[in-house]
Each structure stands twice: as C-alpha cells, then as structure tokens.
C-alpha cells in the first residue's frame, strides 16, 4: 500500500518533468540552439536537406567574415554608444523625478504620475514623422544624438516607474533623521537615499539599456548607413546582393545574443524585480 503510493508519487514527478519542465525549457531555448548550430556550419552544410542537427565539423569562418566582410564591429559600437548614453541620461533625469514623486508632496503630483504611465503606453509610430522632421531640421538624422534624444524620452517612464517603487521601499525615517541632523532635503536625498537605492538604479539601468539596445522602428528610419546603424537594423537588413548569407547572419545573431543572455542570467533576480515593480502589489 505505502509502496504503491510512493511509486505513484515518483511517476507523477517523472511525468511533471517529462511533460511540463522539459518541453518548456526545450521550446524556450531551441531557436538559440539552432542559431548556434547554423553559425558553425559551412555554406554547403547549411543548404543540406534534411538539415543536420549538429555541425559535421566545427567551422568558425562565419564569425570571422561577420567582421571582415560586414564590419559588424561598427554596428556593435554604435549600439553600445547609443544605449550607453541613453541609459546614463535616463537614469540621471529619472532618479530626480522619481524621488520627488515618491517622497515629496507637490501640486500636480497625481497628474504627473498618470502622464508618465500614459507615456509608457502610447504608440511610438504616432510621433515618428514629427520627430523625423524635427531631426531633419536639426541635421540630426543619421547621427547618434538623433537616436539618443528620442530614446531618452522613451525610457524615462520606465526608469521613473521602477525608481519610484524602489524609493517607496526605503523607510523615510532615514531622511527624517538626516533632516533633524541639519541636512537639506537635497543632501538627504543624495547622501542617504541614493546609496540605498543603488540596486534599483542597477535594475532600471539594465531594463533601459536592453530596451535601447533592442529598439528598431526609429533606428531603422533615422539612420542611413553603417556609420550610425545599430545592431537590430544591421541584422534586419543583413544580406548580400541576392541571397541571405545564413551562416554569417546566424554568427552575428549569436555574437549579440550570447552576451545579452548571460547578462540577463547574471542579473535574473534584479530584472524580474524590475519587470514586476508596481505591477503586482496585491
């Protein structure tokens, strides 16, 4: 009787792994596996039918020609500059605004919260042309700042939202004590609260960086050549004259994806906390 129960329990656990856990992990990771697999094949093996599930011989040439023939390093540099500057600026502006929203009472505070929430939802296509004309007037098309300035505005709501919820989690007695000790409110914020909010800054920074790194619609239309083209645009337009070089394309894909996936895995907890900030308070 007891043994039968134990066997049933073991079978149920096995079934859970086989029919729930394994399919979930397999489906989530398969496209990345397939990309790595393809990137390590020769052109002749890539166009075999049926496709081979492992490269017959590991072939690195695709990874070399991504740089030697396509100058992908330029796109990586463009993306790093655009996403890096966007993150720094959005954090600097976002932290100040979030602190005021979380800690200070001022007229119009609620209205501002609603405005910021709405700004995170509106479709960006609806300001594409006015911004395009604005950037053309400034001669900022095909420049870094032509992307950075819109990106800052797109990431501010996210940064403010996450930072506000982090500030709320820090007990306000700490600043009150600093105020009693004679600090000005600004000093209390910079010296007492900001160091405690550092994890929130990392979370917000990561999410803003990833969003700016991934942005496509504006990057596609505001850049014309590889001097400013970011990674997503380069990958989307990746081709040779008449055919898509699948081996090189998948190598480029792996070069971009693997560091990003590692970053996400390292900061897993922070990212999940940031994604769910303010969303589930019960």
């Amino acid at each position: 009787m007891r043994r039968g129960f134990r066997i049933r329990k073991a079978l149920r656990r096995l079934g859970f792994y086989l029919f729930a856990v394994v399919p979930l992990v397999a489906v989530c990771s398969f496209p990345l596996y397939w990309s790595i697999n393809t990137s390590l094949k020769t052109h002749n093996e890539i166009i075999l039918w049926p496709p081979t599930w492992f490269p017959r011989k590991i072939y690195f040439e695709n990874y070399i020609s991504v740089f030697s023939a396509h100058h992908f390093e330029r796109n990586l540099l463009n993306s790093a500059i655009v996403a890096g500057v966007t993150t720094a600026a959005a954090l600097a502006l976002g932290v100040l605004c979030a602190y005021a929203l979380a800690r200070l009472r001022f007229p119009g505070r609620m209205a501002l919260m609603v405005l910021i929430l709405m700004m995170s939802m509106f479709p960006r296509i609806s300001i594409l042309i006015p911004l395009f004309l604005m950037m053309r007037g400034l001669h900022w098309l095909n420049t870094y700042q032509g992307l950075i300035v819109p990106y800052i505005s797109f990431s501010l709501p996210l940064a403010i939202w996450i930072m506000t919820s982090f500030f709320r989690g820090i007990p306000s007695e700490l600043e009150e004590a600093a105020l009693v000790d004679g600090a000005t409110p600004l000093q209390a914020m910079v010296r007492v609260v900001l160091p405690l909010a550092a994890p929130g800054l990392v979370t917000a920074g990561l999410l803003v960086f990833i969003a700016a790194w991934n942005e496509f619609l504006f990057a596609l239309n505001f850049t014309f050549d590889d001097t400013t083209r970011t990674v997503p645009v380069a990958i989307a337009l990746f081709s040779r004259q008449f055919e898509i070089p699948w081996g090189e394309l998948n190598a480029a894909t792996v070069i971009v994806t693997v560091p990003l996936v590692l970053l996400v895995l390292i900061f897993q907890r922070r990212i999940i906390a940031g994604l769910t900030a303010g969303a589930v308070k019960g």
Partner: protein
Amino acid sequence: MFRGTLTASQRRLAFGLVLPALFVILFINIYPLFQSFILSLQEYNAKFPAQRHYVWFGNYLKLFRDPEYLAALRTTFFFTFVSVALELFLGLGAALIMNRPFFGRGLVRAAVLIPWAIPTVISARMWEWMYNDQFGVINDILMHLHLIPEPIPWLGRPGVALWAIIIADVWKTMPFMALLLLAGLQVIPEELYEAAVIDGAGTFKRFWYVTLPLLRPAILVSLIFRTIDAFRVFDVVFVLTGGASGTKTLVVLNREVFFSFLNYGYGSAISVTIFAFIFLISLAYIKGFGRKWRLIE
C-alpha cells in the same frame, strides 16, 4: 513624508527635480503628438510639398473607405487577440510550473528568460531561418512527425503566414507574461490552499476558486501591457514578411505610407487612429477593472 511640513522651499525642490524629465517628455513626446494631429488634417505629400493644404477631416473620411487600411485593422485586431490569448494561456501554464518547488527550478526560470532577452528583430530572424521553405528545421521536424507531407512555405502563404508570425511573437513575449503571473502567484498565502484542502477541494477546485480569483490583478496588469504591445506590433512582421501574405498590421502599413509613399498627411491620420485605438483599449481595461486592482498608488 514631510507631510504637514510642506514649505515653499520643498515645493521648489520638488519642481526642480521633476522639471528636467517633464521637459523632455513635453518636447519629445507631447509636442510631436500634437504635431501629428495637425499633420493629419492636411493633404501633405513630401513628393509635392508645394501642394500642402488643410483638408480638415478629409484624411479620416478617406481612411474608412480605404480597403488596405481596413484590412490592416482586421489583421491587427486578429493578431492582438490571438497572440495575447495564447500568451495568457501558455504564460499561466509556465507560471504554474515554475511556482512548484522542484529540482532545477532556477535553471527553468533562466531558460524562460532567454526569449525575453533576445532583441525582437534577432529572434524574428532566428524564426525566419527556422521557417525557411527549403532548408528550415520546422519543416524537417513536422515531416519527421508525419504532420505534413511536404515542406510548407510558412511565410509565403496567405493565411499561414500570420499564424507563423503569431507563433514567433508568442515565443518571444510569453516569458514576460509568465514572470508577471509568477510574481502574482507567489503573493498568494499558502494558508488559503491549506484551508481549501481541509474543505476537501481537489486540484482543479483549488485552482478555480483560490488561484484564479487571487491572480486576477496580475492577469489584468499583464493583459493590459501585452494587449497594447501587440496592437503596435512592428518588428516581427517587418522582418518575417515585410507585410506580405496578408500580414500587414497597422504600424507596418503606417510606416509604408510614411517612407515609401512619403504621404505625411494621410500617414499621420493613420497614426492618430492607432493612438486612439490604444487609448480606447487602455480605457476599457481601466474602466472595466480599475477599481478592483489599483495600478496607481
């Protein structure tokens, strides 16, 4: 804090802190939004800038007789409804799996984050390659399973292509849904389940009467985010089909009107309707459920 001690200097500090961010939002988002509306009232084709003039609501009247616009509207609604429904269903399943204690749970959570971490354009190109009609692995797998007799051009066949895009999109966005729902599951107190067990509730009843009602806030928040995101879909469609084979969604059409036809006036009218649809969708969610779950504060 500082309640009751709101001095003029503190108010000045608050405005000083808020102002830079507000300035950026006003000039880079609100002002262009207003300009879009003004443009939408004009006949304005950048090929013939001299003929620019006001037609007031003429562009909008034209929209609702434009078969291409109406088709894009239908495609967008279909895409949004089906992909969000699938995501909710699969995301809830994934969240329930990850909420159970088992060996290797950390690894599973990491694997689920992979699709989220990959830029949409890049994941779309991965899927494009897997969907390839001559060398694609999806045809290979399905033929091995004897589900299809011969390779299918997934992205080239009307009717099939939209579903192929939906699957690629669900793969990419389901993790976000799953993580939000998982966070919601984790705040449900264990005692409720214990009480339900004592009352004799089975697995299904526990799910239906305890989990689902308490998960409602998390479900609604993730639904609103995902619905809005799906409605403005662009990247995955642009990469996989470019809008061909009956997959042209509103934003894809809109970009084409802007940059292929240079029709800024008519295009802006399309933009304004997209904005209006998203506004209405959010309003419907907030009016319908806003009191039950408190998004702000």
